[in-house]
C-alpha cells in the first residue's frame, strides 16, 4: 500500500488503540451496562481487522502471528472450562462460581469476569483468525 491511503492510514493509526480500549471497556463493564465478552471480542477483533485492512495481512500476521491467535482461541475455551472445573473441584457444581471466593457475591463476580474474559479471548481469536484467513486467501489469489 503506497502512500495512496495516507488518509486512511493516519486516521486508523489514531483510532486503533482507542477502539481496542473500547473493546476492553465493554469486556469489563458487561456487568453494568450492555455488552460482555462476546461483544468485546468482536470489537477488539474489529480493531485488528481495521489494522489488517489498512496495513495489509502480512503486517497483521506479524502483529498477531498464527500461534497467538490460535492460543487465544484455545485458551479462551480452556479458561472458561477451567473455571468450571476449578469450581467443581472446590466443592460446588460445575460453573458454580459462588465457591470461588469466601463471599457469594465476590465469587460470582470473579467467576463472571473470568469467564467473560474467556469468551472475549476466544471470540477475538476466532474473529481475527477467520478474517485473516479470508483476507489472506484474497491476497494469495491476487498474487496468482
Amino acid at each position, binding site marked *: 500500500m503506497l502512500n495512496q491511503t495516507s488518509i*486512511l492510514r493516519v486516521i*486508523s493509526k489514531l*483510532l486503533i488503540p482507542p*477502539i481496542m480500549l*473500547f473493546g476492553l471497556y*465493554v469486556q469489563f463493564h458487561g456487568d453494568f*451496562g*450492555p*455488552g460482555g465478552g462476546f*461483544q468485546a471480542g468482536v*470489537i477488539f477483533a*474489529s480493531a485488528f*481487522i*481495521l489494522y489488517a*485492512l*489498512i496495513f495489509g495481512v502480512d503486517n497483521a500476521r506479524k502483529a498477531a502471528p498464527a500461534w497467538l491467535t490460535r492460543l487465544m482461541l484455545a485458551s479462551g475455551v480452556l479458561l472458561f472450562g477451567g473455571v468450571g472445573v476449578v469450581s467443581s473441584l472446590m466443592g460446588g457444581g460445575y460453573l458454580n462460581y459462588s465457591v470461588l471466593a469466601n463471599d457469594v457475591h465476590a465469587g460470582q463476580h470473579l467467576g463472571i469476569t473470568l469467564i467473560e474474559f474467556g469468551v472475549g479471548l476466544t471470540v477475538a481469536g476466532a474473529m481475527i483468525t477467520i478474517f485473516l484467513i479470508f483476507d489472506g486467501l*484474497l491476497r494469495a*489469489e*491476487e498474487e496468482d
Partner: protein
Amino acid sequence: MFSAAALAILVTMLLVLIRAYKGPTVYDRILAVNSFGTLTMLLISVYGFLTDRPEFLDITMVYALINFIGTIAVSKFVRFGDLAPPVPENDPGDI
C-alpha cells in the same frame, strides 16, 4: 420532542433506503448504507432519550465503529477485489 426527531430520522432512513435500492452503482449503495449507519446511530441514541434510559450509548459507539470499519472494508473490497462492478472500462486512467 425526541419523538419528532425520531420520526425525522425514520423518514430519512426511508429516503436513504430508496437510494440504496436504486443504486445505480455500487458506490451509491455503499454511500447510502454508510448514511444509514449514521442514521441508525442517531435513532438509537434518540430512542434512548425517548425511553429515559440514555445510558446505552455504548451501542451507538459500536455502531459508529462498525459503520466505519464496514465502509472501509467495503470500499477497500471494491477497490482491490477482483470483482469490479460491471462498468465499461473505456479509459480507466483518465479523469
